[in-house]
C-alpha cells in the first residue's frame, strides 16, 4: 500500500469545539448566502414585495379613503416592510428548514460540536441580515417613489422590524421544524397568503368589522403592520404592537424547542 498520500500523524486526534463567535458567524454566513442564491427565495422575499410596492404606489387600486390625505407610498411602504418580514423570516425560513431537515442538514450539523442553541441562532442572525437587505432595497425604491418616513419614528421602526423578524423567525422554525417538507411548503405559503390579505398587512383593522379588527390587531402580521405604520407614518412607538409580537415570539419559541425535529 502506498502511504505517500497520508503522512503518518496527519489524522492524529486533536478534538475540540470551535470558538462560538466563529461558529455563529460561519453558520449565519452560509445560511444568508443560501437564501440569496435561491431563486424562489428571492422571488418571495424581494420581487413580490417590490412588485406590490410599485403597483400599489403607482396604480390607483386601493380605496382612496385608506390614505386620509397622505401619499400612497407613505401608506404602503410600512405594510410592504411587514410583508417582507413575513416572507423571509416566516415563509422562506419555514420552507428552507423543512427541506434542510429532509436532506439531513440538521442531523449533519448537530453531529458536529455546534451547540443546539447555535443551530437556531445562526438561522435567526441570517434572517436579520436578510431582512436588513430587504429593508435597504425596498426602502431605497420607496424613497425613489417619494417615501418620506417620520424621522422621529425610524428608530422605533428598526426595533419593530427586529422584533418582527424574531417573532416570525420563531414561528417559521416552529412550522418548518415540526412537519414534513411538503406540508411545510403548502402551509407556509397558505399562511403567507392569508396573512397578506386578511391578516392586517394590506387590510387595515380600522376598515374591518370590530370583532374581526380586534383579532387582526392581535395577529403578529397585524401588530407588525400597525406598529410600523405608527412608527413610520406617525412617528409614535406602539407598545401594544411590541407586546403582541413579544408574546407570539415567546409562545412560538417555547413550543418549537419541544417540537422541532432534526429529520
Amino acid at each position: 500500500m502506498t502511504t505517500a498520500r497520508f503522512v503518518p500523524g496527519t489524522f492524529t486526534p486533536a478534538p475540540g469545539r470551535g470558538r462560538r463567535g466563529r461558529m455563529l458567524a460561519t453558520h449565519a454566513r452560509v445560511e444568508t448566502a443560501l437564501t440569496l442564491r435561491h431563486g424562489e427565495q428571492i422571488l418571495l422575499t424581494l420581487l413580490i414585495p417590490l412588485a406590490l410596492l410599485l403597483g400599489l404606489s403607482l396604480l390607483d387600486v386601493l380605496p382612496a379613503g385608506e390614505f386620509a390625505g397622505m401619499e400612497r407610498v407613505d401608506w404602503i411602504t410600512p405594510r410592504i416592510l411587514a410583508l417582507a418580514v413575513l416572507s423571509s423570516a416566516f415563509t422562506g425560513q419555514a420552507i428552507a428548514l423543512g427541506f434542510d431537515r429532509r436532506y439531513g442538514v440538521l442531523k449533519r450539523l448537530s453531529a458536529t460540536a455546534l451547540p443546539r442553541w447555535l443551530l437556531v441562532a445562526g438561522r435567526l442572525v441570517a434572517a436579520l441580515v436578510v431582512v436588513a437587505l430587504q429593508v435597504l432595497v425596498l426602502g431605497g425604491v420607496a424613497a425613489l417613489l417619494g417615501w418620506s418616513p417620520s424621522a422621529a419614528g425610524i428608530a422605533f421602526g428598526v426595533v419593530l422590524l427586529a422584533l418582527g423578524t424574531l417573532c416570525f423567525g420563531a414561528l417559521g422554525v416552529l412550522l418548518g421544524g415540526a412537519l414534513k417538507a411538503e406540508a411545510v411548503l403548502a402551509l407556509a405559503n397558505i399562511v403567507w397568503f392569508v396573512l397578506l390579505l386578511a391578516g392586517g398587512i394590506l387590510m387595515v383593522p380600522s376598515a374591518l368589522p370590530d370583532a374581526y379588527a380586534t383579532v387582526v390587531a392581535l395577529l403578529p402580521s397585524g401588530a407588525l403592520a400597525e406598529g410600523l405604520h405608527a412608527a413610520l407614518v406617525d412617528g409614535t412607538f406602539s407598545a401594544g404592537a411590541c407586546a403582541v409580537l413579544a408574546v407570539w415570539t415567546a409562545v412560538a419559541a417555547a413550543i418549537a424547542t419541544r417540537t422541532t425535529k432534526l429529520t
Partner: protein
Amino acid sequence: MNAAAVEITGLVKRFGSVTAVDGLDLKMPRGEILALLGPNGAGKTTTVEICEGFRAPDAGTVRVLGLDPARDGAALRPRVGVMPQGGGAYPGVRAEEMLRLVAACAADPLDPAWLLDVLGLGSTRRTPFKRLSGGQQQRLSLACALIGRPELVFLDEPTAGMDPQARRLVWELLGALRTDGVSVLLTTHLMEEAESLADDVVIVDDGAVVAQGSPSALTAEHAEDAQLRFRARPGLDTRLLAAALPEGYVVRESTPGSYRVIGHVDPQVVSTVTSWCAQQGVLAEELHVGRRDLEEVFLELTGRELRT
C-alpha cells in the same frame, strides 16, 4: 482511565411493534477498525445512531469514549466524527463551503482545501452539493466526518455508491486513520471491505450479534468445510448438480454465473462437478477449491434468502 471506544451492553431499541435492536452487546477497543456487517434491516444503522446520540435506547447501556451519548452529547460530539448514511448537506451549498462550515465547529481542524484535494474533490469546490455525483457526495460527507480530527469516527456505509478507485482511496485513508490512532466503526455490505480493513468484524442479524472476531478467525471457525467455486454461464440448474453429488453437498449460484459447492471437497467431487458441466455442454472456468471467505460465513449465519 482510557475507556473503550464503544461499549454496548444489552441494547434494545423498538420502533412501534418492530424491535430493531434486540439485546446487542459489543465492545470496541480504541485505535481499531471495527466493521458492523449485517443484512438490510439488521439494526446496524439504528445501533450507530444510538452511539451518535441521535436516538435514545429503550434498554441497555451505551458508552462511547466512556460517555453516555444520550446524556453527555455536548461533551462527546467534539470528539467524534460522523458520516451519516446518505450524507447530509444543504442542496445548494458548495462543497468547500459545507466543509468549512463543519471545520468552523472544531478547535483545530484539518485544512479543508487539502482534504478536498486528497479526496479528489479539488475540482468541485464551488459545485453545489446537489450537482455532485453520489460518490462525490459520499466523499464530502467523509471529509465532514474527519475534518475536526476526531478520536473516533462512525461511518455508515462509507463507500456506498463509490467507484472502485474512490473505494480504494477511502480504504487507504481508513488505514491511515488506524495508523494515527483513530478508532473507526463502520457499517458495510462489502465483504471485501470488512475482510481487508477491519481488525474486528461483528455480524449482526435481527438486532443481535451472531458472530464476532477478526476476519481470519471468523473464516477459520468454519474451515472444516471447504468449498469449490467455479464460473459458468448463469442459470445452471443447481438442484441437478446437487443430485449428482453425494448426499449433504449444497450447490448455490451466489451471484449470476458464480457457483459454489459446499461440503467436503475431494478429487471425486471435483471430477463429478466437471463431468456434470461437460454433460451440460458448459465449460467450468476459474475452478477453485479453498476455504470459505467472509461472504460465505456471512451468508451461512444470516441466511441466503433475500428478505423483503
